[in-house]
């Protein structure tokens, strides 16, 4: 339910995939075999005002900083699904 208007109606909207790093953390221990370490976890504030938790890719841990501009990318996950991750916006694929 929407906490403001108490509506149950919603629609799916495309987002730009553009945002900036609100916070981050470089995870070292403990380790789970499903991931490559260190894992860079980040909270991304999207342009549309939504905050999402994700991973940062294509960047060295020491180069990550709060306020860094990032753009969405997609990485394969289990069952032929994909998860959204983020990489620095300046990098061109």
């Amino acid at each position, binding site marked *: 339910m929407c*906490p403001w208007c108490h509506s149950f109606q919603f629609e799916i909207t495309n987002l730009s995939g553009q945002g900036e790093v*609100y*916070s*981050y*953390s*470089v*995870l*070292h*221990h*403990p*380790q*789970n075999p*499903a*991931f490559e370490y*260190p*894992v860079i*976890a*980040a*909270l991304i504030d999207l342009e549309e005002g939504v*905050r*999402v*938790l*994700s*991973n940062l890719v294509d960047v060295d*841990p020491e180069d990550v900083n*709060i306020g860094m501009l990032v753009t969405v990318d997609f990485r394969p*996950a289990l069952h032929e699904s994909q*998860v959204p*991750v983020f990489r620095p916006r300046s990098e061109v694929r």
Partner: protein
Amino acid sequence: MSHQLADASAIVGIGQTEFSKAAGRSETQLASEAIVAALDDAGLAPEEVDGLVSYTIDPVEETELVRSVGMQEIHFSSRVPYGGGGSQGVLLHAAAAVTAGVADVIVVYRAVKARSGERFGRASGGTRPTSAHSGSTAMQWCFPYGVLTPASWMSLNAVRYMHKSGATNEDFGRAVVQFRSFAARNPNAHFYEKPITLEEHQASRWIAEPAIRLFDCCQETDGAVAIVVTSAARASDSRQPVLISAAAGAAVFEEEIASNHYRPDLSVMDGSIAMGERLFGGFGISREDIDVALIYDAFSPIFLMQLEGLGFCEFGEAKDFIADGNIGPDGTLPCNTNGGLIGEGYIHGLNLSTEAVRQLRGDSCNQVPGASTALVGAGRTGVILRRP
């Protein structure tokens, strides 16, 4: 005009098991042992108990406890949500229930095998969408990204806090060094006789960089703690009562416990701020009255954030408050004198409450001379206890 709960109830007994890494017996047995010890301490018999309060995440069944300890008729029972942030809520529930007269003698308990049983800190990844009523439903958005442990969840908040406040991991380390110094003199503590230096803290490995090193983490522990609460009137003829002078809780919109990532400003603990305002708002007690504080330290960064949230420091000043020695034995606000959850062990924060009682009885291993008023704060729940 004082609050209805102010000094209306009292803690008359505390009990615990040993704290270990492998208890070798069930949580129900651990809880039973702690409760019997607390009742002995209170000078009360099991059949006088008519209330039970614990946590939504506690594994012990009330029915089993009643049968195990020999309680005869329970008139009030409740469980507090919000994980460790709710850890002082059990005293709020107990105080409210005895003040309302729905129960006379309430046992508050927590039994956990956080090391030999299900470990919070193991990066196993959950298949559960939430953490079983710990107040962390957004956790499901963490798992696909390898954010699997409480340290990893909280580090995201801590790094934002560091960014805004200028605090560093070394600043967190100064608090840890003090807790370990207290723990070194506490025979019940995991780190008894094992103090560390700031250099040793800084040499411990990264768990979640740049916020949390190994020594910034609390100790996963097996054990149980129990506390007996009754009315102040009934407590007046008990051996060493401690008054519950204030009790408060504040669960804030969109604030989760561990995976708290969606409040507008993650550099502050909104629940701690709101709870502190209630604790110091309606009970006629000021921050200057607090002689000793026990503040929930699952991880060292949230200790600083709560010092500020509770109003003992302005935002960003906790690091200087600590560096100036204020939380030490001779400071203005000695903190976590049992060693905290980092030094003594993690019994969910209820072992902070028992240390507050020991301080007010004059029984602490790190006794603050003449301590008459103690605060226990755990994020969104807290109490102030006083010597009668």
